[in-house]
């Protein structure tokens, strides 16, 4: 025993414990790490360049006039896309108010009521297939049902087409979020004497809310940017909408129309409209995060 009370074992032959950089496995590790850095960098180039272009090109024309005026015709100068902003917001609101309640109720069935029934298996499979559904077919569906039935292009038809696209995303995300609620939390609620409805309403939905909202926002963001389903459902209009049952302008169709025109003014407006579309999605995202932030 030494004086300090610690007795060291006799030293044995140890291989060197220092870090060696030129060793094979260290080099391999370095190479792979660099590769992932490079891949991450490469993947972010398109994203950042799109945002950069939007800010530079779109920011130039982004003013009150662009946000409120009606689209210019041919050689006109000035103008804006106020009606398209309103149209997009209205149609997204319609599709959200159709797809969110329906999607959440379906998710409750899939996640809690009968997760393994035939109906649930089928519905889940179809929802997954629908997430890869070509969006133009949603437009065809709404055209065949609403447009032909009512005899006019309308915000309704556009909203329904978008709802068809949003529904599977909302349903699957909400199902996943509700499945994440631990069984023991549900057991606790049952043990307190909750009915199944109360367990879902007081425990599962509040606890799963952040995940559900994430799914809703993803769906909204996707729907707001869709143009194909609106081509022959809402069509377009050069005026502010006065009712839901008439052809309605939308940002995505305006961008589509204007970006193909040979006029400088229209091209600039298309850029500005793109920036506005991205900002709208961003604002939705922030709002949803604020509402859905886990409180506890």
């Amino acid at each position, binding site marked *: 025993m030494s004086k300090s009370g610690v007795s060291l074992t006799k030293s044995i032959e140890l291989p060197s414990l220092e870090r060696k950089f030129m060793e094979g496995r260290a080099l391999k590790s370095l190479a792979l790490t660099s590769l992932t850095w490079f891949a991450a960098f490469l993947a972010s180039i398109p994203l950042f360049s799109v945002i950069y272009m939007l800010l530079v090109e779109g920011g130039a024309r982004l003013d009150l006039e662009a946000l409120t005026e009606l689209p210019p015709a041919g050689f006109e100068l000035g103008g804006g896309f106020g009606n398209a902003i309103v149209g997009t917001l209205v149609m997204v609101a319609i599709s959200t108010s159709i797809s969110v309640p329906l999607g959440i109720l379906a998710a409750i069935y899939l996640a809690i009521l009968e997760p393994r029934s035939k109906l649930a298996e089928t519905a889940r499979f179809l929802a997954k297939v629908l997430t890869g559904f070509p969006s133009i077919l949603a437009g065809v569906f709404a055209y065949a049902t609403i447009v032909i039935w009512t005899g006019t292009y309308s915000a309704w038809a556009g909203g329904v087409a978008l709802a068809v696209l949003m529904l599977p995303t909302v349903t699957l995300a909400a199902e996943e979020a509700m499945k994440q609620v631990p069984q*023991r939390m549900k*057991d*606790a609620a*049952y*043990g*307190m*004497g909750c009915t199944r409805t*109360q367990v879902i309403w007081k425990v599962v939905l509040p606890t799963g809310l952040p995940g559900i909202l994430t799914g809703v926002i993803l769906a909204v963001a996707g729907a707001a940017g869709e143009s194909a389903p609106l081509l022959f459902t809402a069509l377009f209009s050069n005026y502010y909408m006065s009712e839901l049952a008439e052809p309605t302008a939308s940002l995505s169709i305006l961008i589509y129309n204007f970006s193909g025109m040979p006029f400088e003014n229209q091209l600039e407006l298309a850029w500005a409209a793109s920036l506005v579309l991205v900002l709208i999605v961003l604002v939705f995202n922030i709002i949803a995060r604020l509402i859905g932030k886990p409180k*506890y």
Partner: protein
Amino acid sequence: MNAPLEDSLFIAEAYQPEGDVVIDCNVKTIHYGDFLAVRDSAVPIEKNRITGFIGPSGCGKSTVLRSLNRMNDLVDGFKFGGHVHYHATDIYKNNIDPVVVRRYIGMVFQQPNPFSMSIYDNVAFGLRLNKYKGDMDERVEKALRGAALWEEVKNKLKNSGLSLSGGQQQRLCIARAIATEPDVLLMDEPCSALDPIATRQVEELMMELKESYTLALVTHNMQQATRVADNTAFFSVDISRGGRTGYLVEMGKTQQLFEQPRESLTKEYLSGQFS
């Protein structure tokens, strides 16, 4: 497995309760689908006492406990044969609503399971569920004091229930369970996820709770049974005929059971010859 049971099967000698019996549980068979999980177990739960359930894994002690407030109804394929008389009512009669049963017979689980709500809302949950009209603050404080948690949380009632330590979470769950002043409290290995200090606190709490409530406790820890249980029921599992069927071996006063077990199987288990 649905074949009638043979006559030669061991059936435990009935325990003769001395005091009032709150729950007269007499299991004939408990099936999950075709699987016979528990057979022939009569476990009377006496008022203001702690009844401990011990036995090796898979012996059905938790299954029997969860049958006492119909928590097992949530499991697919659960079938109960026999009777559970809660006071004068058989809770397995067709016209009984299991949801109402669970409001009188509360439960504390193995894993602490607070809701992701504030501490206050966790305790108030059952009161709100029952549309309690009186002074909510007072009842929440009373429940938290009852669960020996008040001093630790009184200044942070708005904090998340999930921010507490494991032992505090379990006491929060006990507070949540006693806030509605149930008649009986079922505890399914409430200390198995807790460290020794938290375990001791929960055990002391159980001793206080039995003054006002009736408790049934499943435990894996035999020392815990000797420390807190007044009566103890020992279950074992029969694997001789291919199945894994749990059954009651012996029930008695804890001291009698541990010091002079009637059955040799009990003796072997208590002396650590199998587990």
